[in-house]
């Protein structure tokens, strides 16, 4: 049985309030024995979980857990089933994911769970920063999970993942580039203050709209309200919930955040994340690249 949906008023306006939980909702559940709920921390910083985490939560490392060590791809169904089972998760478990950097990697992990069709995966609104800034409990104790039985379920990339050829076929359709304005225009090949990523070409995929991911978050790291998000993506960009949309960034983590916003908070029917993103597109032979500031 999945955990109950967080009934908070803030979440009620979103298209899918069942995909998000508040810090208070989670805190209330830490006191209960909760075999219906497992909490995962997924961070950019690989050591952050070890410095302290939400009591009872498990670490899920994007780099060493979710990526295949050889192919540039995610783990296969067997390995994924192991990762879940090791953390006491079965197919009926509600998985709440949180992390650093306004949930970049948490959203990415949730998106990977979606590829495997995990039925109930939710984000903690505001992520690690919101929890810590409210002075809520943290621990260094690593929990010992009850053994779980997770089925080997084949990954289905077709619905929410786009590959390079999908993007080529989609040219002329709606695309959202969530990187910084300098990366979009082609002045930078990496985020401001970040190391050079080494793409051969700077710029963006022709026709993409520029909506940096952080515009979807408030200063406290939580998502903006439904009305505010609607204003940005529908009002300003003219995106409609029945549009076929592809989102991308540099390696697919920031665009997972925007994928979550469009799919679960605004209720878009068909959003795919291009996780190859600029590190692939900017290095690919014979793909078109556009430069210059966004047209509005």
């Amino acid at each position, binding site marked *: 049985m999945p955990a109950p949906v967080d009934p908070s008023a803030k979440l009620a306006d979103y298209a899918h309030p069942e995909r998000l939980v508040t810090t208070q909702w989670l805190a209330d559940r830490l006191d209960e024995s909760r075999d219906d709920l497992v909490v995962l921390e997924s961070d*950019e*910083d*690989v*050591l*952050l979980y*070890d*410095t302290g985490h939400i009591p009872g939560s498990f670490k899920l490392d994007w*780099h*060493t857990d979710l990526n295949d060590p050889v192919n540039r791809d995610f783990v296969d169904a067997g390995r994924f089933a192991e990762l879940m089972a090791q953390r006491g998760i079965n197919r009926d478990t509600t998985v709440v994911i949180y992390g*650093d950097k306004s949930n970049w990697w948490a959203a990415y992990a949730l998106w990977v769970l979606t590829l495997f069709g995990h039925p109930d995966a939710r984000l903690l609104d505001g992520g690690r920063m919101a929890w810590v800034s409210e002075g809520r409990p943290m621990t260094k104790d690593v929990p010992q999970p009850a053994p779980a039985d997770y089925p080997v379920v084949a990954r289905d990339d077709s619905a929410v993942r786009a590959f390079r050829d999908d993007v080529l076929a989609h040219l002329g359709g709606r695309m959202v580039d969530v990187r910084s304005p300098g990366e979009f225009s082609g002045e930078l090949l990496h985020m401001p*203050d*970040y*190391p*050079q*990523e080494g793409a051969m070409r700077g710029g963006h995929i022709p026709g993409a709209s520029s909506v940096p991911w952080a515009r979807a978050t408030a200063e406290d790291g939580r998502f903006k309200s439904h009305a505010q998000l609607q204003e940005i993506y529908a009002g300003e960009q003219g995106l409609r919930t029945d549009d076929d949309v592809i989102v991308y960034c540099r390696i697919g983590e920031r665009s997972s955040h925007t994928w979550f916003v469009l799919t679960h908070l605004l209720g878009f029917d068909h959003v795919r994340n291009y996780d190859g993103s600029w590190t692939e597109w900017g290095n690919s032979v014979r793909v078109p690249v556009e430069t210059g500031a966004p047209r509005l």
Partner: protein
Amino acid sequence: MDLPEPLAELITDFTTVGPKDRLQLLLELSEELPELPPRYADHADQLEQVHECQSPLFLAAEVQDGRVQLFFKAPPEAPTTRGFAGILHAGLNGQPVDQVLDVPDDIPFRFALAEAVSPLRMRGMVAMLARIKRQVRAKSLPE
């Protein structure tokens, strides 16, 4: 070329344990990174930001009596970046100028961390070392 002894010992420590213990070592080094003395803590503008790092990291290198003194500022919510700073502090602080300048630029890759930490992050540590060496070079020129 001989590496400074503490740095060579750290490389041995990291490369003779498994990946899990390697991360534990990195965490310990991040916790052992010394606090800044007031002359830097109260004057952050005296530190140089290492823009290549994924988290805000600032450093200063001084030369006293022919030996290098290192100072780092890194936020606690970025323990990996702090850990890299911890390696460089534990391995190079107090070492002779020549020894520090002779440290190979690819030394960050000899800690067997690239498989646990993404390659992108390793470049942050390469950049820290480059900036340390540049400051040491500038501050050890004859007057």
